[in-house]
């Protein structure tokens, strides 16, 4: 199986590409997307666009990234306040290879 690029920088770059498909390139020219960027406050992402992002993450990373389980642990206010960095960290940890000798 090919090694997935899982560095936070690579995941951030992937996420920015997916976000561009949802909010449009113009928005991302105005806002420099980094770990502290808030989806709602800074990118004006609506709840339904968050659903679209989850969809794209599912398509991009297959079953390895469970966005819905991640979101299920949060209430609506926490979801709305989520930063790009929190999502990047979650994706990176989902993609991290299992340590040799770990119990499966």
């Amino acid at each position, binding site marked *: 199986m090919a090694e997935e690029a899982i560095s936070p920088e690579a995941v951030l770059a992937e996420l920015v590409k997916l976000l561009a498909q949802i909010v449009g390139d113009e928005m991302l020219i105005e806002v420099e997307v980094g770990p502290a960027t808030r989806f709602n406050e800074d990118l004006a992402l609506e709840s*339904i666009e*968050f659903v679209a992002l989850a969809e794209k993450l599912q398509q991009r990373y297959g079953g390895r990234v469970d966005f*819905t389980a991640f979101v*299920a642990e949060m209430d*609506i206010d926490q979801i709305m306040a989520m930063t790009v960095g929190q999502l990047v960290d979650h994706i990176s940890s989902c993609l991290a290879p299992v340590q040799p000798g770990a119990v499966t």
Partner: protein
Amino acid sequence: MAEVVANGVRLHVQRLAPPAPSEGAPVVVFVHGLILDNLSSFYYTLANPVALAGGDVILYDLRGHGLSEVPATGYTTHQAASDLDGLLDCLEVSTPVHLVTNSYGGLVALRLALAHPERVASLLAVEVNCTDDWTELMANTLTVIALALEHDGIATALAALGQRRMARTAALADNLLNGTTLIDDLASERPFTPTELARLTAPVCVFYGEHTELLASARLLEASVPSCHLEIVPGLGHTVLREATDVLRRVALSWLADQAGLTAEAATPTI
């Protein structure tokens, strides 16, 4: 599966599976409200707890809403019920489903339950307005909004101010209210009669905020529907889904535990 073509319209669908095993899990379908609502209002509040409690959860955007297609016509509750019936066919759901609805979504559910009683196992309707003045009230309110959007160029003004989210919302509402037959279709609706409501066989729970303007609907449903449980929550108005999510979640899980055999308290997701 994200998109389904049902009843000739492309619908955005999200499905949340319960923890394994999912074979034979009770199907719970969420139906959102009108104009500015979409599946995200349930997706981020009740849908995950219900899935974790054992429900095979289906959420979708009504035609004209969210990420579904916006056809120019077909916005009656009869058409919406046909869309839902077609959606369930496409998803190969043949067992009766448990419906959880917000506001206008409750009207769609009532239409479905009357047209296809074999489709509906139970209904939890939050803040549904079904009295005989609702069509006029809705059509009038929406007409005022439609005129304001059209004449004041609100969407364009907001975009110019860099208010992306509000501009998008205004453009969406403008397109739906001024670019489709939605208002005319609503105005042409027949309200539900007590005789019709008396034909409902499925158990119904109706949930209202104490300060809602819809208490007449609450009383009509309680009086007419054979198996109807009424919950009124103190201190709340129409926006219970947003303002009292925790209360509604407890009520919904308790209701679905009785009706569908789900666990009353959702399992805590493992971190």
